[in-house]
């Protein structure tokens, strides 16, 4: 789902194909073997084999079936190796008891909760999975990755690994972490899934709304992190954004009638449509007013706007507007304006009002005040900005005051507001959340 101007090369197409097929294979294999970590290992090996063979032999007619057979065989080998290892350890353990020695296995083996849980038999499965079964398998994988008992950073890392097929190095790059920290986090996460018995299943009807909301939140975090790293050298991380968009696309494909999924995909597409213009040549973010709108991605804007319309159609009349849909609608208002001056600020202020109903946070109120300043003038905007409580430590609150004070010709006060903003560190809320070391 790339919206780059340049078409992806054959190699990237192959990688994307292997990743998509690999994800589908993983989702079903995890159900068959009842063990996500084992399935992951098997699929990773199969994917590596594909990346090795396909460029030489050509892409098979049914790539997923090819991967499925290779991954299943690999899983079978891994199970056999594991049961041999277990038998060996059990023998050693018994000998220790007899001889009274305490030369136990290395510590990590003892802590390993995986032992003794492998099934003795191995399921034979079809090499084609019916679409409705695959649909549920993907949902299972999604709900497991986004289980509320896992820390957000763990959910994100596991989703990138299993649902996006990224390597530990790629995840580390995407989350500005180290491969080592990512690897450790993934080990801990898999260990928790297995030891704590996080089920590989679609939640019951009663639990579903809450669990689906958790899934949406995780993908939203990824979209945000991909779009606006709050500090640091690269303000936009295309690789992460692309994966977040893929996930949003998957959510929408799995539940096409869900307003939240529809809205998330719309929001992602609309934000991504500005990628080419977000930064100037020095990597400094460009204000919306200064961006060259002819370089915005029209196809992404069209797709995003259509999804906003679809989301509104799916919404329940009279109920509060879905928070992601309100954000997508605001993004659509910006994307559809021919230039900054022609922006429909009235509509944007209304959407912020709607957003405040479900998300009454000071940052949303600040953004509404900025839109209000464009609609009603700097004086009204400044009054609204100053009325937002609790943002004394938020540099953008002071910076916004400075901009509006300057428009009003109040230079001295503006300079003081600028100084206050400069004295505060840049906020890093999502960074802290996503840093696997944190």
């Amino acid at each position, binding site marked *: 789902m790339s919206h780059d101007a340049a078409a992806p090369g054959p190699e990237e197409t192959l990688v994307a194909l292997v990743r998509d097929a690999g994800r589908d294979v993983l989702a079903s294999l995890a159900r068959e073997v009842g063990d996500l970590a084992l399935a992951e290992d098997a699929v990773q090996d199969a994917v590596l084999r594909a990346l090795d063979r396909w460029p030489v032999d050509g892409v098979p007619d049914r790539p997923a079936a090819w991967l499925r057979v290779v991954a299943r065989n690999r899983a079978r080998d891994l199970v056999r190796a594991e049961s041999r290892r277990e038998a060996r350890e059990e023998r050693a*353990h018994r000998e220790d008891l007899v001889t009274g020695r305490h030369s136990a296995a290395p510590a990590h083996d003892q802590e390993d*909760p995986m032992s*003794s849980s492998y099934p003795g038999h191995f399921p034979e499965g079809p090499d084609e999975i019916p679409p409705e079964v695959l649909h549920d398998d993907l949902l299972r994988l999604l709900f497991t990755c986004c*289980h509320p*008992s896992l820390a957000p950073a763990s959910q994100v890392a596991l989703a990138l690994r299993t649902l996006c097929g990224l390597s530990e190095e790629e995840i580390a790059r995407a989350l500005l972490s180290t491969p080592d920290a990512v690897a450790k986090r993934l080990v801990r996460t898999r260990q928790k899934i297995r*030891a*704590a*018995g*996080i*089920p590989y*299943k679609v*939640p019951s009807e009663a*639990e579903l709304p809450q669990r689906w909301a958790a899934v949406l939140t995780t993908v939203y975090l990824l979209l945000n992190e991909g779009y606006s790293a709050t500090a640091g050298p690269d303000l936009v991380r295309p690789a992460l954004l692309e994966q977040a968009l893929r996930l949003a696309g998957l959510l929408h494909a799995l539940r096409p009638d869900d307003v939240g999924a529809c809205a998330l995909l719309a929001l992602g597409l609309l934000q991504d449509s500005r990628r080419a213009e977000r930064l100037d040549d020095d990597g400094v973010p460009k204000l919306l007013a200064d961006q060259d709108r002819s370089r915005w991605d029209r196809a992404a804007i069209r797709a995003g706007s259509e999804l906003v319309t679809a989301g509104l159609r799916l919404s329940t009349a009279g109920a509060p507007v879905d928070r992601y849909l309100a954000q997508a609608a605001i993004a659509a208002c910006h994307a559809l304006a021919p230039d900054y001056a022609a922006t429909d600020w009235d509509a944007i202020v209304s959407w912020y009002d709607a957003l405040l109903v479900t998300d009454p946070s000071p940052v949303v109120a600040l953004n509404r005040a900025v839109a209000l300043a464009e609609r009603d003038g700097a004086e009204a905007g400044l009054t609204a900005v100053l009325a937002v409580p609790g943002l004394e430590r938020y540099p953008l609150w002071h910076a916004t005051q400075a901009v509006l004070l300057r428009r009003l010709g109040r230079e001295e006060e503006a300079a003081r507001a600028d100084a206050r903003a400069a004295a505060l560190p840049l906020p890093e809320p999502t960074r802290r959340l996503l840093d696997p070391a944190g």
Partner: protein
Amino acid sequence: MTMYAAIIYSADVDYSAPEHAEEMAEYGAFSMAAAHAIRGGAALFPTATATTVRASGKGGEIVTSDGPYAETKEALTGFFLLEADDLDAAIALAAQIPAAWNGAVEVRPVVPMMG
């Protein structure tokens, strides 16, 4: 089926005292309702009655100190052993323990006993 410990953190008081009879009755009601899943458990006297024990090595000198290992606002006041299909089922059970709304319940898988 997996065995879970539902570790209860709540106010550090003497739950055997008459003024806490109502709370204990709530626990009794939970024990009845979840009898199918409960494999053990206990309520504990307050941390003021605790003694922390250390030894300078196996069979070595015993060092004791008054009170719990860790002082926290909400103390470890009891636990249940629960058998459940998976974590979701265990969480659903733990949410019915009165401490879930009067404190917190930590759900942890129990290491199965070897052979």
